[in-house]
């Protein structure tokens, strides 16, 4: 089920990027797409009844049923990269606003 939710988020993000005409809304759509993707990555490693892949005094040995830790590590990297792109996108949005006085692509008077 979770995988379908992730795919729906990816579709929503894609739809937003294609249709929105506001720079900030496009960045938000991009973030929705990335969140959907991250959710999908985590879902790929899920095991029914699996434990978080951390050894603790309760879950002390490696014979236990852990979920796949690798997708979680990948998601960590993907999130940070997403943060970097978003920060940069917002900074570019600010320079766009400084130049055109609007965030709306239709009101800028050039392509």
């Amino acid at each position: 089920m979770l995988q379908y939710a992730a795919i729906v988020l990816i579709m929503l993000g894609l739809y937003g990027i294609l249709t929105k005409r506001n720079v900030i809304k496009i960045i938000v759509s991009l973030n929705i797409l990335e969140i959907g993707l991250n959710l999908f990555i985590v879902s790929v490693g899920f095991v029914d009844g699996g434990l978080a892949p951390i050894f603790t005094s309760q879950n002390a040995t490696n014979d236990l049923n852990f979920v796949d830790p690798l997708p979680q590590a990948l998601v960590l990297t993907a999130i940070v990269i997403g943060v970097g792109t978003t920060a940069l996108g917002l900074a570019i949005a600010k320079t766009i606003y400084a130049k055109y006085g609007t965030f709306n692509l239709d009101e800028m008077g050039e392509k």
Partner: protein
Amino acid sequence: MSAILLIVIPLLAAFLSILVKKYSANILLVVSFASVVLLNYIPLEVITIGGFAAPYGINLILDQYSLIALYAVNVLFFLVVAINCAKFKKLSSILLVALAGLNGMILTGDLFNLFVFMEVSGIAAYLMTTTNQKPLATFNYLVQGTVGSSLYLLGLILLYAMFGTLNMQDMAFQISSSGYHIAVTAFPFLLMFIGFGVEAKLLPFNSWVQGILGSSNRLTGPMIASVYAAAIGFVLGRLLTELFVFEGTLLLIVTAILGFSIVAGEAMAFGAKKVREILLFSSIAQAALVALVFLSGFTGLAALLLIANTAGKLILFLITNTATDQLGNDDISTLQGLFVNNKVVGVSFTVAVLNVLGLPMFFGFVLKMNILLEFFQTDHLLWPAVILIVSVVEGIYFIRLLLKLWFKESDLPQVEFEFTLKYVVVVVAALLILFGVYTAPVEQAADDLTAIQYIEGGNL
């Protein structure tokens, strides 16, 4: 000497350079030159990082193929930087990161690590293009680049879910030994190919190119059209030969995309009225052609064709963008007669154009002829026909452009080309002629590259 230094030294220099802003341009120049020198001293090997062997850890692959790619990218990068570093001092740290990212992209043997380096060099590229003063085009580039790499990541994760590995070679091995029908990997491969297609300028995923290259300056034009194009082309080539398995419908889709890119790119270049637009549309067509040759399995020739094209594009974009900076726009009518007073630059420009066209006596000719011969041998008659026809179209618009640039009676445009730029373009042009006349090493290199023992799987 380990190839890891090619990534680590620029990174370390980037981290340190933000403290000594005054000298950051010098650091950039020294480091990019040091990378070129360092290339001569590194042995061919597979480098394990962190002491964990592949597929558990990340490895870097330095074989003949990546060595040639590194030479091309580092030399081109150094040339672009040498001409521009004084003017774009603010970008020095970012350019250092870009160098690390490009080298990492070429070297890495891990598919997720490739995604990371793609983002590193991608973000550096977005930042460079802000110097075009077209924030909207940069924003467009950023959105498309991010969507592209997200598609790549989605494809990669689907592959991981099926085969449980991220290492490129291990992935190819698992796929070929799993016994599953080829269709299970079709969709992930298509996603990854499209994701790369955005960066590699393949139609119809490349609407950022016009905004970026159409208003590029002396740094971004050569950097994106030449250095980045070379790096992305080589990585795409490695994926096409070592990992992707395209068969049946998928092969049809991919070839259709490539064929469409070639034909449409040339057609748009034919109709373009500005010099930079002609160059950027023709580079779209050439990127697709290189990918097509990789796809057909002629790895060595494709790699050399990529080098010939990107070296040519370096000259073309450098000269055009210098003239545009000084004249204000790049309409053909404005630049008409540019070379009447600048004969040296004009000859280099002409050599680069003729090389891209593939006329005899130039590097590009040797390659195009060999590619055609290879195609004839495999009884694929469609592609040679397409290549020949688009070459004619290319010939018409490029010769038309050259005639305009060389001949004008009066009212000549006044453009100053400084010595460094002249020196660089003449040397590169001389090399293009040298390898066009003295063909033996080229053919040898192409054979060597093709003869590499590829692992099981992939297209070969």
